[in-house]
């Protein structure tokens, strides 16, 4: 039997916890209490699942990628289609769960951080749908990279706060969101977008994302009468991966998390937290992070805004340490190649984040046998990345 994580102190083995300014200890306790109550309330579950189905369009499809499987000549490749979720990525699952919780707690204002903008859009979306006020913190570099999503958030009625500290990416947006929350925790709900942050966030986000894995398991068993041999997901903060992996943790399936190697893990420009980082504290949680010898957090780099994060959810740190999940890393270039391959062979343009998982899976598929199977979490669609793709593929297409 698997141990139940996190424990009462919010620990996944050595990792997790609450490393936050004193001011947040109260709000975190309030959140934990509300969450525990909600999770034991059937009405809350029902509402959450009702919104997922009726509004977000779940269950998302499980697609057999026949053409790419044939092309690679090995394992049968299946895709879990989170790109078909309303707003285009898995992020909405979690945003719906937390927004319902915020309402239940009587909070009418939410704040959120965002990198790729997907979580920002998801937050702005649930804010519109549930009548909440929404402020999204976003790094100025990401605002540039994800112009489309910025406009979507504004159109949805959210305020987008540009963050210029650091590199102006996800880490900095998160710092700023936490600072704002510290000052405004009385009436604001902080809607974190990944399985990061202080307890109970990593647990809560995982539990609102596990619907991905739960559905996948059921669907996969239906079509293959067996579980997948290997399951892949990209890892930024790690929410789509935890959502996918969690229901399979006690099964035989090999689980592979894929980080962003940026320009290469031998360069300083990457976001391969587990591969190259060390344990430490970031954004309220003890986990792995990218840091220098003095314990200063270093600036990550990835072509994909959603993976451009120097930390990782503490549960991943635990799964890494206990070797239950294998973590690999994929460069910008490998990701872009995989993106094109999937686009041209299957007619699905994935998010660049997702393309990292695809690239690792495609690398491995050929050496697997034809009766083996793999399941890749297609965490989001690539529409938001068109500007970046145009820059990169301008001459080729």
């Amino acid at each position, binding site marked *: 039997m698997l141990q139940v994580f996190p424990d009462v102190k919010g620990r996944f083995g050595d990792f997790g916890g609450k490393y936050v300014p004193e001011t947040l*200890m109260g709000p975190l306790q309030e959140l934990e209490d509300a969450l525990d109550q909600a999770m034991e309330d059937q009405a809350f579950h029902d509402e959450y699942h009702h919104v997922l189905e009726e509004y977000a369009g779940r269950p998302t499809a499980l697609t057999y990628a026949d053409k790419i499987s044939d092309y690679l000549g090995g394992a049968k490749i299946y895709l879990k289609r989170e790109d078909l979720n309303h707003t285009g990525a898995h992020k909405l699952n979690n945003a719906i769960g937390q927004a319902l919780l915020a309402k239940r707690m009587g909070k009418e204002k939410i704040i959120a951080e965002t990198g790729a903008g997907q979580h920002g859009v998801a937050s702005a979306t649930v804010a519109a749908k549930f009548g909440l006020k929404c402020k999204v913190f976003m790094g100025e570099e990401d605002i540039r990279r994800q112009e489309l999503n910025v406009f979507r958030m504004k159109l949805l009625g959210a305020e987008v706060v540009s963050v210029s500290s650091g590199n102006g990416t996800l880490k900095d947006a998160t710092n700023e969101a936490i600072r704002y929350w510290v000052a405004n925790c009385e009436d604001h709900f902080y809607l974190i977008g990944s399985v990061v942050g202080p307890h109970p966030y990593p647990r809560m986000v995982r539990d609102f994302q596990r619907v991905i894995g739960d559905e996948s398991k059921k669907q996969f068993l239906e079509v293959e009468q067996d579980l997948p041999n290997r399951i892949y997901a990209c890892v930024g903060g790690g929410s789509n991966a935890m959502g996918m992996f969690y229901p399979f943790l006690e099964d035989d399936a090999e689980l592979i998390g894929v980080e962003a190697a940026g320009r290469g893990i031998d360069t300083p420009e990457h976001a391969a937290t587990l591969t190259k980082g060390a344990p430490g504290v970031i954004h309220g949680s003890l986990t792995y992070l990218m840091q220098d010898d003095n314990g*200063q957090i270093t600036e990550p780099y990835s072509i994909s805004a959603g993976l451009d994060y120097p930390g990782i959810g503490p549960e991943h740190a635990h799964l890494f340490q206990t070797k239950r999940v294998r973590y690999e890393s994929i460069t910008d270039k490998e990701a872009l190649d995989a993106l094109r391959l999937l686009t041209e062979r299957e007619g699905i343009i994935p998010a660049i984040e997702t393309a990292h998982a695809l690239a690792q899976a495609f690398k491995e598929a050929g050496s697997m046998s034809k009766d083996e199977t793999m399941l890749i979490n297609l965490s989001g669609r690539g529409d938001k990345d068109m500007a970046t793709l145009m820059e990169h593929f301008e001459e080729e297409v």
Partner: protein
Amino acid sequence: MLTKTSFQGKLEKTEDLFIPFLVAGDPSPSMTIAFALRLQQQGADVLELGVPYSDPLADGPTIQRAARRALDAGMSLRKAIELVPQLRKHGLTIPIVIFTYYNPVLRLGHDQFFDLLEENGVEGVLIPDLPFEESEEIRGQAESKDIEFISLVAPNSEQRIKQIAENAKGFLYCVSTLGVTGGENTMTGESLAFIKKVKEYSPVPVAVGFGVSTNEDVKIVREHADGVIIGSKIIRLIENELDKINSGEKSGALKSFSNSIAELVK
């Protein structure tokens, strides 16, 4: 009633404490020494020596800027601690509290961290992102080295106020308002009631920080608490002098800094 001295016996006063904050290395180690001495001259009782950090979650833009300057000048946790003997050499006698985020400490390792503190004669340590529940081990280590581990308490600490206050060492850092450093101080009736409650439980002086930036603020805090902590305001006063410092007029800068401090805490 406060009963005992603290900081290895170096702090006898238990009332009307003035606790200024400097970021080590902002804008340079030598200027930090100079500013610290001026603060002592102006009546500082304890110095909070901040270690600059890349991602200071509890700090507002002012301290973020200071940290950036100090990091750019090469400051680190180890170097900040090693600045302490320098401060002593130049005449600083008041107790020094190293203020650092937790990650640099973790990176160094707890044991090495405390060895360094001890070797360099540091009297206190404050880690703003290590709340009571996560600090048991480090509190034990601090105690065994006779180093005060400074705790923070906030208005929304609620049931935890008693526990935190009762276990406080050195002085108790009372966050008067919700927010990061550098905000506006608003001493409402609620804040006063909160301070009163904290004082009931605390065996050590209760110092109020966050948003103290005018002489008026200082006076109000003095009236109700045992000490006043001033951070962002001091950084802003340093920023006022940066041009002079950069153009070599150090003594002029220090003089005008001293005057401003005198105004602030008069």
